[in-house]
């Protein structure tokens, strides 16, 4: 057995695996230090009392790990700053839900010619097209992406990532913020789709090729 041959190395390896239970942020910052400290404790225990002392140390280490893993996870979830940032992220996602659903369904219906009779655009557009509600409809679709971008930017301020307007994406990439990056990509996709849609819709009018716009 490897453990029997080199109990110190095996214990150190096992402890490093236990550290995976901690929240990633805590692990990144303190994992190597905790692992190094445990290795020092292992050496001292081995010198003091061999396997018996190692077993005692492991008993204490397990209790220490279980209680602190719970504490760190609770601490992470009760951090008001992180909760605030999560709210902003959820708001950005919520703002994007309606227009993104419209865009996807429209692409399926008009791009791939699938029949979607319950497509909300299909149901709503004829009702609002020649009324003042059209502006609200357009505003919801068009402004959602910039509003979501603003919420993502506010989230970066909340997290004190010191963002700059031109470096919004780079800060997210550097911080490994996958959800933020995903929503950002959605915003850009939505803005591009809306841009193409409005060009396609209005350019012929501008060029005088359509009568009813």
């Amino acid at each position: 057995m490897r453990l029997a041959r080199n109990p110190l190395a095996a214990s150190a390896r096992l402890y490093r695996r236990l550290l995976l239970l901690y929240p990633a942020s805590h692990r990144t910052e303190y994992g190597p230090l905790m692992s190094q400290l445990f290795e020092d404790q292992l050496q001292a225990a081995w010198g003091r009392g061999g396997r018996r002392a190692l077993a005692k140390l492991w008993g204490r280490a397990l209790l220490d790990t279980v209680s602190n893993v719970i504490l760190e996870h609770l601490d992470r979830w009760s951090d008001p700053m992180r909760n605030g940032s999560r709210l902003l992220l959820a708001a950005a996602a919520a703002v994007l839900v309606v227009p993104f659903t419209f865009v996807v369904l429209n692409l399926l219906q008009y791009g791939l010619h699938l029949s979607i009779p319950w497509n909300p655009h299909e149901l709503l557009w004829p009702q609002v097209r020649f009324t003042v509600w059209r502006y609200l409809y357009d505003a919801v679709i068009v402004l959602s992406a910039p509003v979501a971008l603003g919420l993502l930017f506010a989230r970066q301020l909340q997290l004190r990532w010191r963002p700059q307007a031109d470096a919004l994406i780079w800060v997210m990439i550097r911080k490994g913020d996958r959800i933020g990056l995903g929503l950002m990509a959605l915003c850009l996709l939505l803005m591009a789709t809306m841009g193409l849609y409005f060009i396609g819709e209005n350019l012929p009018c501008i060029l005088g090729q359509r009568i009813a716009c």
Partner: protein
Amino acid sequence: MPKPQMPDTTPQNPPSGLHLGTAMFHILLALADGQKHGYGIMREVEQRHAVSLGPGTLYGAIKRMLELGLIGEAEERPDPMLDDQRRRYYRLTPAGRAAASAEAARLEGLVRQARAKRLLPDPRPETSRG
């Protein structure tokens, strides 16, 4: 993952009414006479106070104390030939010293009460009678 950052705490003004946990107080005591690394703190606490701090408890407390501005990472390091460069050294801040003094005074007050209620013997040497 983003590193969580807490609001700045002015070192000279520790949060009022801050109640230090046992681990925090032991760490502040260990750092009172100079900067130490994690294992150094742990050994001192174990030897002087017979309290065992595991890596999780020690670094959890260190993280919170750094956030509260009670301790800081030391910039000066021992000679690289004499030390492991992976280690981080911690030092007491003025806010940490003030918090440790306040906690020590609080504990002293409790000890005085315990003496007054005869739960502890009086430390004053007995004067000769007659």
